[in-house]
């Protein structure tokens, strides 16, 4: 800590470090670009990316040294930035090399042995809550709190020990013997030291920091975990997916750039005129390339539409049909139920809880249950229908036949079956959301309406609906986005997936098939982007509608 004796000295250390780091980064970047040394084994794109990042970082570091030398505050900001980034990088790399992330597997393996002791910690917590009872007896309260905290810490520690804390620590220390890991940890230390040096009040004063500087540094600092993770796990993959969608990659071999060929294939339609509505498709279409998608008659002319990728259009149609049915159904039922629930009747909370139940359960588990309910030969749903029909026939003396609906095995009903289940699953959650919206509507609006002589229905139409508009927007949008991505229900309920006769083939199912069954990852990525455009369009449309309806409210 000799640096503290003279301000110039510690600033010199920082400047020196930044210059050194900039030089090192530059050297490494050149190595990467020329492909010398250990960089030779890396893929070109990885080398370019790494070199680019290193160059940027090196320049930042060099600039930091320059500005600090001239006592300009930007130097402090840059120094903190570069050191922080380097620290995060070193930290993540060290964790990766020392196997911390992979260690989660081991944790899952061992945690079972620690669980009983965690119960002890929980008991400690319960004791702690008991302290609230001794309001006013300060000493007693303090005592209990201390005891409870002691038990909690002890329980946690024992649990950790039982789950293998010591072997974990030993293993971690042993990993330090690995020179790379040691280097990374030392790098982490240096960066921490620099961060501390430049973060101090002293440094702020030396570089003439102002309040807005502080807000900026803190702002980036607070956002950084989120932003970094977002860039790595979201923006990065997004760009990668865009790139893959322009290649013919199959997950095993090399990727070849094919330009917009994948997109062309998706949208490639061929429209031809038929001489008669029943003419065979192969007489007018090149059936080695195009499959028949639809035929219709407009103004006496029969037209046939062929598609290069017939299944994509079928999947698009199914997705749209699913959303157009599932979303309004779910939202309308939820709206009605929430209005019924929005009263002070006893037991309402009980119903509210029950309606929420299906939203909690895993779609996979729920689908397995419905699969048996839907079984057309021994399932409960058809048995229920039969019972009702027999009853009606007996009472009314009619002779209605048992429809024996083949829920999941007939193309006419399969999508409907999925829709029913999806509505059942989402309606409770939406009800609760609507309920919240309803409870936020000021009561005097209704009173005013009553004074004006409006009936219940008029109140519903003129007060409830407009006032609920923001909630409705939220509910419709989230339900819509979810239903445009429907996959799990179909994956479990239908066999073959997307069947029968492609009637439940949705875009995500088709994407899965292409990416992970036919191993056409490039093509699957292109489908994903098309799906994004669909979802984006739907959301935008919703947004427009909401804006209109909101302005409508203000007009009133």
């Amino acid at each position: 800590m000799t640096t503290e004796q003279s301000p110039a000295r510690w600033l010199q250390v920082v400047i020196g470090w930044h210059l050194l780091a900039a030089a090192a980064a530059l050297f490494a970047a050149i190595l990467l670009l020329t492909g010398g040394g250990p960089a030779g084994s890396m893929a070109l794109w990885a080398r370019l990316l790494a070199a680019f990042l290193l160059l940027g970082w090196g320049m930042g570091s060099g600039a930091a040294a320059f500005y600090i030398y001239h006592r300009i505050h930007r130097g402090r900001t840059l120094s903190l930035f570069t050191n922080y980034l380097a620290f995060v990088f070193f930290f993540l790399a060290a964790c990766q090399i020392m196997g911390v992330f992979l260690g989660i597997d081991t944790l899952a393996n061992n945690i079972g042995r620690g669980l009983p002791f965690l119960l002890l910690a929980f008991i400690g917590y319960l004791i702690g809550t008991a302290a609230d009872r001794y309001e006013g007896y300060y000493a007693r309260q303090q005592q209990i709190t201390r005891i409870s905290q002691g038990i909690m810490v002890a329980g946690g520690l024992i649990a950790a020990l039982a789950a293998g804390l010591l072997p974990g620590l030993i293993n971690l220390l042993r990993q330090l013997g690995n020179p790379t890991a040691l280097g990374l940890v030392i790098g982490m230390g240096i960066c921490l030291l620099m961060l501390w040096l430049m973060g101090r009040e002293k440094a702020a004063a030396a570089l003439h920091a102002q309040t807005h500087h502080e807000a900026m540094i803190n702002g980036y600092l607070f956002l950084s975990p989120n932003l970094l993770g977002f860039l790595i796990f979201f923006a990065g993959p997004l760009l990668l997916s865009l790139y893959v969608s322009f290649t013919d990659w199959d997950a095993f071999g090399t990727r070849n750039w094919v330009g917009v060929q994948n997109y062309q294939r998706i949208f490639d339609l061929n429209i031809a005129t038929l001489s008669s509505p029943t003419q065979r498709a192969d007489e007018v279409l090149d059936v080695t390339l195009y499959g028949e998608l639809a035929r219709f008659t407009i103004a006496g002319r029969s037209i046939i539409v062929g598609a290069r990728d017939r299944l994509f259009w079928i999947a698009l149609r199914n997705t749209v049909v699913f959303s157009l049915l599932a979303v309004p159904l779910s939202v309308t039922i939820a709206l009605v139920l929430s209005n019924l629930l929005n009263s002070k009747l006893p037991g309402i909370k009980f119903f509210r809880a029950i309606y929420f139940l299906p939203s909690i359960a895993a779609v996979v588990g729920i689908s397995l249950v419905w699969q048996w309910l839907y079984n057309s030969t021994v399932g409960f749903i058809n048995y229920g229908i039969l019972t009702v029909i027999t009853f009606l026939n007996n009472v009314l003396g009619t002779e209605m036949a048992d429809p024996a609906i083949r829920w999941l095995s007939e193309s006419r009903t399969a999508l409907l079956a999925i829709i029913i289940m999806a509505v059942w699953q989402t309606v409770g959650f939406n009800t609760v959301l609507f309920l919240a919206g309803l409870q936020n509507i000021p009561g005097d609006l209704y009173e005013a309406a009553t004074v004006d002589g409006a009936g219940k229905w008029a109140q519903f139409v003129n007060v409830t609906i407009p006032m609920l508009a923001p909630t409705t927007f939220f509910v419709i949008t989230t339900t819509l986005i979810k239903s445009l991505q429907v996959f799990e229900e179909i994956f479990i309920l239908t066999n073959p997936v997307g069947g029968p006769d492609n009637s439940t083939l949705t875009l995500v199912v088709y994407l899965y098939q292409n990416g992970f069954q036919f191993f056409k990852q490039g093509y699957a990525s292109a489908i994903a982007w098309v799906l994004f455009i669909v979802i984006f369009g739907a959301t935008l449309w919703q947004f427009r509608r909401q804006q209109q309806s909101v302005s409508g409210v203000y007009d009133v």
Partner: protein
Amino acid sequence: MISPKLRLLTLLILVLLLVACGGNNTSSTNNTGAATNDNAAAANPTTPPQPAADIALRWRTRPDNQEEANVYATVSATLDQQLEGISLTYEPGGSETASYQDVLKTEIANGTAPDVFWIPGTDVADFATRGLILNLASLAGATSGFSVDAFYPGPMFHLTYNPDSMASGGASGALWGLPRDVSTFALYLNLDLIAEAGAPDPRELAANGQWDWQAFLEVAQAVHALGPDIYGYGANAWWGPYGTWMNAAGGGFFNEDRTACNLDSAESLAGLAFEQALYQEYNVAVPYGEDSEPPFRAGKVAMFQNGRWATPGTRTVTFDWDVVELPKGPAGNAGNWLFWGAYVVNGSLTGERAEAAWKLVQALTTAETQATVAALGANIPSRVSQEAFDAFLTYTPPANNQAFLNGLADSPATEGPLWAGSWPEYAPVMDAAVQALMTGSSTLEQFAATVCNDANRAAFSR
């Protein structure tokens, strides 16, 4: 007041994360797979690896139920003892509904696939042409006493197919694996229902040579007359069952050299027409696409078409049951399939690991191993030998095991890969078109007009 609690929580998380650091080195190299016992392995993170001499191999099959998984685990333990210098880990894969093959390919793509694994016969070409499995021909050539003739010729034809020279056989220069077992279809009979309907016993009809499509239809109709929810026939919606009707009429999925669709040939259409009539005209069958197993086991189906693999499950039913071979079609045979799957070797193996894997493949297909597996009752050994047949006949019930062997003898069509195209893309197109036909949403004419265009475009366009 929230901060001390928060601090404690943070402490707890940190501690947990520290724990997480521990012992990663145990699980990184080998997933000590076999499902159940994992506490021991991770308890001491510093477990030394296996003695250096042993080559550790992982292998996988697609078990249909837990009993099967247990039998393979036993086989693995036995072979682990027998094979010098090789240590084995068996891992049960997912079942068909869990997309066994898709997962396998995904694993191969990122290098985590097992060393030896089973794949269905239809998928051999897809794996081989992508270079995902090893050509074992040179290893086999160096093995004294090995002959491809010990196994059924049907599977071996496909397993020795060389896509470059388009030749097959012992000298083709290709060997993609060895067949684990074979199986054929039979009709599982609910004898109680047939007796109640007063219909003739199909087993007697078969013994007298009268078991043809007409006789089959009459039995099915007689049973269906018992009630609208009683079915004469049931089969599941995949290529196996509808394939048999096509085969029995002299048709098939592909043309002679398996380079194009043959679903619209007159013979194939004739077979499909009869099957369609079962569903649409006579209404004697469990609705197409509905799983026929639940109603069969609920006692509502008289004749349930399924493979040997359905036997263990059927043994729990409460009614009187047996099996009979499929009825003979216009082409003179029952059109049965010879189902098979093969043990293959991961394409990334080289050197002594490849040799060890080849040893394992051989060990898994010896007569002894196959007998152990066949005793389960789920399949038939893939080696041609009278002893195997005789042993197989003792695995009762069903009493009429001979029906399966008759199926094998009745010139079945061999399940086969599609070297010229992509089977994973051919099958869904075919499935969807047949489903539309059987559920009445398309007619035979519509089917004939489009199916081959669609199928050829999907599977042969690369």
